[in-house]
């Protein structure tokens, strides 16, 4: 059993959810965006404001699910924790890349449909799209790792120590949001540091969060389901 099998199994499990989530974002926000465009002069990018924010939380939820549900499922099917963690990490990276591509693409469609939404907001262009990709990807990775690390702390140690470990666990998400998160109009921003520095700090803390999570999970006891 390899991490590639875990990855392909997770992709298969999440395929309907990923497609549903993506379709809901594109169609739902597309319709709302069009209505906004017809009725008012939008001062911000609804796509970036909603979709750009939603995806990172969704990655956080996947991180939590990986620990609290999928670890138990896979170990019960004869897969080692190590393989689950490796396959789950690959899944998190792949989905993060996917949504980091989806966000600038959606912004491009919005821009085509409505034109530039605000004078303060940059019109879509390939460099802007690359910039959005470069911001969304590390933020999504950080939220994925934070979700998994928070869940791993509580799963392994229970409420007491899990609460104490909450601080290092949420750090990747908080830091990425502070350094590379969206602005009030949905635009991507780089704060406090130049982009290369912000990216390096964010990815570095994310890797530390991933190591924390890996250490918590490598020999964790497989807990019973709450229901039975």
């Amino acid at each position, binding site marked *: *059993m390899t991490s590639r*099998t875990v990855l392909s*199994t997770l992709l*298969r*499990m999440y395929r309907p959810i990923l497609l549903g989530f993506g379709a809901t974002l594109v169609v739902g926000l597309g319709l709302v965006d069009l209505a906004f465009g017809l009725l008012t002069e939008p001062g911000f990018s609804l796509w970036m404001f909603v979709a750009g924010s939603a995806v990172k939380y969704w990655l956080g939820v996947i991180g939590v699910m990986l620990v609290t*549900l999928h670890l*138990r*499922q*896979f*170990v*019960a*099917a*004869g*897969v*080692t*924790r*190590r*393989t689950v963690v490796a396959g789950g990490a690959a899944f998190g990276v792949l989905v993060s890349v996917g949504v980091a591509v989806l966000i600038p693409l959606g912004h491009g469609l919005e821009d085509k449909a409505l034109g530039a939404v605000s004078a303060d907001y940059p019109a879509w262009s390939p460099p802007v799209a690359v910039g959005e990709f470069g911001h969304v990807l590390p933020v999504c990775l950080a939220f994925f790792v934070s979700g998994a690390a928070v869940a791993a702390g509580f799963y392994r140690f229970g409420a007491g120590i899990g609460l104490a470990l909450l601080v290092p666990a949420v750090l990747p998400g908080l830091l990425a949001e502070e350094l590379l998160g969206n602005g009030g109009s949905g635009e991507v921003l780089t704060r406090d540091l130049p982009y290369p520095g912000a990216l390096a700090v964010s990815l570095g803390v994310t890797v530390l969060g991933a190591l924390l999570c890996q250490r918590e999970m*490598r*020999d964790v*006891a*497989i807990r*019973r*389901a709450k*229901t*039975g």
Partner: protein
Amino acid sequence: MIPSVSVRDLTVRYSATTAIDALTLELAPGRIYGLLGRNGSGKTSLLSVLAAYRKADGGSVLVDGEDPFENPRTMRDTVFIRDTLDVADSDRIGRVLDFHARLRPRWDAGYAAHLLDVFGLDRRTRVSALSRGQRSSLGVVLGLACRASLTLLDEVYLGMDAAARSAFYRELLDDYLAHPRTIVLSTHLIQEVADLFEEVVIIDRGRLVVSEDTDTFRSRGVAVTGPAEAVETFVSGRTVLGTQSLGGVRQATLYGELGDEEERRAELAGLSLAPVGIQDLFVHLTSGEAVK
């Protein structure tokens, strides 16, 4: 290859509680073991370590000569079904089976479909909609259809009605005969399952009490039946597990094997001797009054 299991001085702790206390045990390959013990005796903890669900706090465990913890080879060929299923409640049964089919190298989809029929389960039903007994039946399907060389079943009958339990025992035995493997069946329904056991393992308060083949274990006790007075005389000075009387006839259940001379004496006194049920012996051995 059917694995043997070797446990040496195994210790499992939960904070201040010791669930398994320096337990040593050998399981030969290709046998059905009945794992018996009172609530909290450490049965589930032992199975959890064998299945690599939990790391031992002390001692060693070898499955087919290797430490099973985080061992891809042994874990792939070991299945552990607990009373609480390790599946997603929101999944449909079909999806649960597909998941295991992808990950279990010897998964038999045809046999899984047969077992669904036997237990009256529908692939389209969500796990959350299953009754307690149906969840147990799904556990049996997962446990048997993966054909793992080491099959650990921990009270998988919970909530099953008599017909479902009977079907489970029949399927377990049939599939074991067709596809031999090492099966450990932890249960409290001792009387009902006793005929399946080839070996009996009893643990109490985390320690091994008995590990031997079922016939040898049964011979640890004897039921003496005959005229009340003759029975009273015969059992005097022995460990009596229980007595029953009907009219002038009495049956006494004794702990301890009888020698040839004693058997002859019983025959001369008009007494009949019969084996004792595993449950009677189990109750005696775990009651705290057992003869060591």
